[in-house]
C-alpha cells in the first residue's frame, strides 16, 4: 500500500459547468491517458466516458449553471487510471436509472438516455457516492494494460 502511494500521481482540473468546456476536459483526460499504457482507441474511449460523466453533471446536477464548477481528478498508478468526477449539485439515485436498449429509445424517438450505459461499458469499475448539494462523486476505474 505504501509502495503504491509513492508512485501514485494525481492530476486535477476544475472548470465552469458549461458544455463548452467538455473539449478542455477531454484534452486533459487524453493527455493523461497518453501517460499510461492505454492504446489510442482505449484512450479515446476513456475521454468519452469522462465526457459523458461531466455532460451529466453540467446538464442534470447543475442545470447548465456555469457559475458552478465541475472537478475532474485523475489518479494513475502502475495498475490503473482512476477518474473521479465531482460536483456539488443536486445529486440523484443512480440505482434508479435503468439502462435502456437503444432500440427502445429509437422507438421513443429519444435523444438521450445513452450516457450512463456507455460509461458502464467503457470503464472497468463505476461507483457513485451521492450526497445531494454537498458532494456527488463518480469514481471510474480503467485497468492499465501491462507494457508490451
Amino acid at each position, binding site marked *: 500500500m505504501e509502495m503504491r502511494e509513492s508512485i501514485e500521481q494525481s492530476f486535477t482540473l476544475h472548470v465552469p459547468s458549461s*458544455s*463548452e468546456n*467538455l*473539449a478542455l476536459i*477531454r484534452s486533459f483526460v487524453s493527455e493523461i491517458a497518453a501517460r499510461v499504457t492505454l492504446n*489510442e*482507441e482505449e484512450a*479515446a*474511449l476513456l*475521454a*468519452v466516458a469522462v*465526457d*459523458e460523466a461531466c*455532460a451529466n453533471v*453540467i*446538464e442534470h446536477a447543475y442545470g447548465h449553471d456555469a457559475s458552478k464548477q465541475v472537478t475532474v481528478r485523475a489518479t494513475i498508478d502502475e495498475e490503473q487510471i482512476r477518474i473521479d468526477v465531482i460536483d456539488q449539485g443536486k445529486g440523484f439515485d443512480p440505482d434508479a436509472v435503468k439502462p435502456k436498449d*437503444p*432500440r427502445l*429509445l*429509437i*422507438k421513443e*424517438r*429519444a*435523444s*438521450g*438516455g*445513452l*450516457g450512463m*450505459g*456507455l460509461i458502464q*461499458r*467503457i470503464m472497468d469499475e463505476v461507483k457513485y457516492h451521492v450526497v445531494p448539494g454537498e458532494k456527488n462523486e463518480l469514481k471510474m476505474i480503467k485497468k492499465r494494460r501491462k507494457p508490451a
Partner: protein
Amino acid sequence: MPETFQIHEEQQGAVRIFRLIGFLDAHTAPQFEKALQAKVAGGDCRIVVDGSALTYISSAGLGVFMSFIEEVREVDGDIRIGGLISKVRQVFDILGFSEIFRIFPTAEEAVNSFAKPDAGNVAMAEGE
C-alpha cells in the same frame, strides 16, 4: 472562440449529405439536430452523414441520429453513415448502433446505396 464543430451540406440527386467536421458532443449536438430537423421537416429524408472528418462523438451526438431515424424511415427515407474513423466508429459499435444504422466504409458508398433496389427502410448492417 474557434469553431470546434462544423456542418457542410451538399445535395447529390435525391440524397442530402451532411459532412460533419470536428467534435460532436453535448455542446455541438444541438447544431446538428437543428440542421437535420430543417431538412427532415422539408421532406428530405434520404440522408447521408459523411463522418470522415468527424474526430469525436459522444452519446449526445448519437442521440441526434437516434431521435430522427424512425421519422425518416417511416417515409421510406434513411440516415446512412459513411467514412467514420475507427475512434468514432467504436462508439457506434459499443452502443449497438452499428446494427441499427447502415454504416458504409465511405460516404460515397452510402450515397450510392440509395440508388439500389433495397434503397428504402432496411435496418441491416453493411460489412466494412
